[in-house]
C-alpha cells in the first residue's frame, strides 16, 4: 500500500490536504499521515458529547480561495461556505453596533462617521487587493532572485504605483508598518466601531491595537474578505475539511488517520523518510509538513540534524497562543437584550474600546489574564440546529488574551467564571442555561492540535515573520535546508486563517523543484 510513495504529507489540516490535492493532481503518489482521528486540524469538528458539537476550533472565517475551490473541484465535493454574518459589538446599554463587511448597519452612528468607515474599508480593501499577488505566490527572495521572484516584485510595484495611484501608494507605504490604533484614530471617532475593527487586526496574535504591524495583519484579514464575506463554520457536511478529504480521496491521495509521525528521518541533510509513533518506518525522499515549523524542524527533524544557527533561529520563532476557546452546551436559547433572532447569528463581540483590548493584551504579556478579557461569541446552532439536541444550543467563545503560560486548575476555573460573568452582562440568564462547558487554553490547543504553544497561525504574524521571513529566512519558500523537506502550514507565508494558500503555494513550489 505504501510502496512507491512520492510524497508524504504530515498533518491533515486544511493546508496539508490542499497541498496533497495539488500534488496528487500533478500525478504524484501522495500519502498523508494525521495524528488525530479526523482530518481538518483546527477546522475539524469538535464533539462535546451528549449530542453537542461544533464545526471546528475555527468558528468564523472567509471562504477558501476560489481558484483552490475550482482546481480541486471542492464544490462537487460538497464545499459550501457558511452563511454570511455580521459583526455585532455589544454595548452596555443594549444599543449594540452592527456592521457588515462594507458598512455600518445599525443607526446608532452619525452618518458622516458611517461614511468615513465605508471609505476606510473601501480604501483598505483596495490595498489588500493590490497586495494579493504576494499572498498567492511564494515570497520573493531578495538575494539570488529567480525569474518568478523578479516578475512578482515587478507586478507588486506596478500594482502599487499604477493600480493604486501615487497618493494611495504613499498612504499604503505610510501605514504598512504602523499600528491599527493610530490609523483608526486618524480616520474614525466612534470608540466601539474602532474597537471592532482593531479586534479583527489583532485576533489570534499576541498583539494589542498599539503594536506595530497590526495594520498588516488587518490587511491580511481583508485579503480573506476578497474571497467572500465573513461566515460561520457550522455545517460539517459542507465544511472545508470534509470537501478537501473527498477531493483528496478522488485524486488518489491515501490518508492515514490515527497515524502520528514521531520523527522525520534524515541523512546528511536529506530526507530519508518518516517514523511513526507505532515504530513503523517509511521511506520517502520528499516530505511535506503541515505541522508548525518549530515542531517540524526541532522535534520531528531535531536540532542536531540541522545547522546550528538555523536550528537556533527556528527556536526563536515568536508565536505563543493567546486565545482560549470555550464551548458552552446550553439547554435553551440564550437571550441578549437588544438583539433579535437574526442578529444572534452574527459574531458577538465584547470589546467596547481599543483601550479595552490593549489593556486585556497588556496582562497577557506578564502571564496574567485580564479581569476584562476580550470575548467573541458565536452560536452555531442558530444556523444549524443539528449541532445540539432539539431545543438546545451551542455557544462557541473566543477569549483573549489568555497567556500560554496560564495553565493551573484554579486559574482555569477563574477564567471560566470570569468569562461567564462577562457574557452575562449582556446575556443575563446565561448561567442557568449551561449544561456543560469545555475550556481549551492555548496549552490545550497545543496538545490537541499539535500546534506549538497553541498558536492558531503557527507563529506570530509580525512583520519580522512575514513574507520572505516567514517562518524564517532559509525556509521562506516552503523548502528547507533539509533537502526534500517542505513546509505547507500556517507557519509559512502568507500565514494563518483558513485560506489554503500556504498549502497551495507549497505544492506549486514542490512541483517546480521536481521539474
Amino acid at each position, binding site marked *: 500500500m505504501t510502496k512507491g510513495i512520492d510524497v508524504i504529507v504530515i498533518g491533515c489540516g486544511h493546508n496539508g490536504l490542499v497541498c496533497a490535492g495539488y500534488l496528487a493532481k500533478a500525478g504524484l503518489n501522495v500519502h498523508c499521515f494525521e495524528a488525530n482521528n479526523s482530518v481538518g486540524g483546527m477546522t475539524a469538528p469538535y464533539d462535546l458529547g451528549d449530542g453537542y458539537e461544533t464545526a471546528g476550533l475555527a468558528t468564523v472565517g472567509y471562504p477558501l480561495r476560489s481558484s483552490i475551490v475550482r482546481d480541486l473541484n471542492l464544490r462537487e465535493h460538497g464545499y459550501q461556505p457558511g452563511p454570511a454574518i455580521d459583526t455585532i459589538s455589544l454595548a452596555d446599554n443594549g444599543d449594540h453596533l452592527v456592521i457588515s463587511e462594507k458598512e455600518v448597519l445599525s443607526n446608532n452612528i452619525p452618518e458622516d462617521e458611517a461614511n468615513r468607515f465605508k471609505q476606510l474599508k473601501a480604501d483598505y480593501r483596495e490595498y489588500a487587493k493590490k497586495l494579493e499577488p504576494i499572498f498567492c505566490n511564494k515570497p520573493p527572495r531578495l538575494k539570488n532572485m529567480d525569474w518568478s521572484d523578479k516578475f512578482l516584485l515587478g507586478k507588486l510595484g506596478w500594482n502599487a504605483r499604477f493600480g493604486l495611484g501615487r497618493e494611495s501608494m504613499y498612504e499604503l507605504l505610510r501605514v504598512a508598518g504602523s499600528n491599527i490604533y493610530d490609523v483608526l484614530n486618524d480616520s474614525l471617532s466612534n470608540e466601539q466601531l474602532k474597537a471592532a475593527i482593531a479586534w479583527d487586526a489583532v485576533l489570534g496574535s499576541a498583539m494589542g491595537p498599539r503594536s506595530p504591524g497590526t495594520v498588516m495583519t488587518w490587511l491580511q484579514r481583508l485579503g480573506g474578505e476578497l474571497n467572500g464575506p465573513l461566515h460561520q463554520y457550522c455545517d460539517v457536511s459542507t465544511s472545508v475539511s470534509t470537501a478537501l478529504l473527498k477531493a483528496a480521496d478522488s485524486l488518489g491521495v491515501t490518508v492515514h488517520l490515527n497515524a502520528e509521525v514521531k520523527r522525520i528521518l*534524515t*541523512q*546528511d*541533510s536529506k530526507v530519508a523518510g518518516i517514523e511513526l509513533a507505532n515504530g513503523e518506518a517509511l521511506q520517502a525522499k520528499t516530505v511535506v509538513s503541515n505541522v508548525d515549523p518549530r515542531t517540524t524542524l*526541532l522535534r520531528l527533524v*531535531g*536540532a*542536531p*540534524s540541522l*545547522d*546550528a*544557527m*538555523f*536550528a*537556533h533561529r527556528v*527556536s526563536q520563532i515568536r508565536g505563543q497562543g493567546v486565545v482560549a476557546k470555550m464551548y458552552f452546551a446550553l439547554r435553551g436559547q440564550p437571550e441578549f437584550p437588544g438583539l433579535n433572532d437574526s442578529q444572534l447569528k452574527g459574531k458577538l463581540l465584547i470589546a467596547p474600546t481599543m483601550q479595552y483590548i490593549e489593556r486585556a493584551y497588556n496582562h497577557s504579556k506578564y502571564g496574567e489574564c485580564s479581569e476584562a478579557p476580550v470575548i467573541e461569541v458565536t452560536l452555531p446552532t442558530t444556523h444549524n440546529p443539528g449541532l445540539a439536541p432539539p431545543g438546545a444550543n451551542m455557544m462557541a467563545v473566543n477569549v483573549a488574551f489568555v497567556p500560554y503560560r496560564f495553565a493551573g486548575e484554579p486559574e482555569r476555573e477563574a477564567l471560566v467564571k470570569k468569562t461567564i460573568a462577562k457574557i452575562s452582562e449582556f446575556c443575563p440568564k446565561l448561567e442557568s442555561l449551561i449544561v456543560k462547558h469545555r475550556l481549551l487554553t492555548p496549552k490545550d490547543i497545543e496538545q490537541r492540535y499539535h500546534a506549538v504553544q497553541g498558536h492558531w497561525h503557527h507563529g506570530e504574524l509580525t512583520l519580522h515573520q512575514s513574507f520572505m521571513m516567514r517562518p524564517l529566512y*532559509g525556509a521562506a519558500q516552503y523548502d528547507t*535546508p533539509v*533537502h526534500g523537506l517542505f513546509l505547507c502550514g500556517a507557519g509559512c507565508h502568507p500565514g494563518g486563517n483558513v485560506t489554503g494558500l500556504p498549502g497551495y503555494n507549497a505544492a506549486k513550489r514542490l512541483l517546480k523543484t521536481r521539474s
Partner: protein
Amino acid sequence: MRILKDHFRQALSRTPFHDRLRERSATEEWMSWNGYKVPRILDKLSREYFAVRSGCSVLDMTPMEKYQVTGPDSRLFLNRLVTRNIEKLRPGRVTYVAWCDDDGKIIDDGTLFQFSDDQYRLCSQHHQLDWLLISASGFDVDVQVETHDVAALAVQGPTSYAVLTATGFSGVEKLKPFDVADFLLGEIKVSISRTGYTGDLGYELWMDPKDGAEIWDAIFGVTHLYDVQPMGLTALEMVRIEAGFIMPGFDFNTAESTIRDGYSRSPYEVGLDWLVDLNKGHFTGQAALAAEKQRPLKRKLEKLVVEGNKPVGESFIYNGKKGKRCGEVKCTTWSPILKANLALAEIEYTNGKRPSDLWTQIDYKRELKWHTTWAKCHAQSKPFYQPKHRNETPGLE
C-alpha cells in the same frame, strides 16, 4: 566557574604567573591577550626566539579560551560542531579541529582534548560560549567556560622533554604527539599534553591556578642544567609562522566578526581542507561546504618564501613582476633559523588555480630613506620549519 569579582577595577586581569613574569620583564612591554596582561617581549626577542628553537621556552598561555564539554551526548555534539570526524578520538588523545557557521565559514579553530568517554575540553583563540550553547540545543550536554579556572603553560623547544623530566615529571616520555595524561609533581596534579603552537617538540601543562607559581618555580629550578627562558607573544608569532600555523581573526576573518558578504573564509580557503570530512554525517556547514567543493577554489591562504633579505611588510602579491594584483600578505616574519623571509598570504585563484608567478613589492627604509624593490615569492605546501625531533618519542634528552 570562577566568579569574577572586582575584576573591573583592573583594566587587564593577571594570570597566576604574572608575578613571576614581572620579575623577568626587563622591557615592561605588556599587551592584552583575551583580557589578560601578558608580555610582548620580556628582555630580548632573539634570546626568546632561540630558546624555542635550540633550548626550552615557557609561555604563559592561561588566556586561551577553554571549555569543558560533558554529558552523554558530548561526542555527538562535538562531531556536529566540528568539520573533522572525531569518531576515532579516544580518552587521553587530543586533536586539532575547526568549526564553521551554517555557511561553511570558519568561526574558530582549536584543540579538542578527550579525558574520558563523556568529558572533553575545547581550547580556542576566541570566545565561543554563545556558539557552543547555540550548538548544544537538542543535545544532552553541558558546556562550561573554564578559561579562568585552568592555568596553562607551554613548555616548548628541543630540550623541553629533558626540562620536564628534570623538573620531576616522570613518564613524560610515554607521551606521543597529541597524547594527554595526568602527572603528579609532589602532591600537585598537572595535566600534560604533547601539543603546541611552535612546530617544535613541546608540551602544554594544564593546572589549577593556585598551583601555578609552584609549577613555574619547579620548571625554572632546573636552569642550572638547561637553558629555560620565558617567552613573550612576539617570539611566538615568529615560530608559529615558521611552523605554518594559522591564526583565525588575524590571518583571516572569523565568520562571526565579519559584516560584509564575502569577507569570511571557509576551511578550503585557508588550507584546512584536510580537516573537513564531508562524509562523516551531518555537521554545521556541511551542505555549504559540499556545495563549495563543487566549485573551483576562489582563493587560498598560502605559505610563501620571499626571496632576498628585505623584510616583507603589509603588501600586495602580484602575478608576475609589476603584474596584476592577485593577493595580499596577512602576516610575515624573518626566520633566523631558515635565514628567509616568510609570509602567509591570501592568493586569489583563477579557475581554481594559483597564479604561477608570484611577486611582491617591498618598501623599505635605508637610513630613513624609502626605497622600493620587487621580490619573487615561492609557495610552499609543507610547513617552513619542521624539525625531525618534533615527532620523536621520547623527546630529545
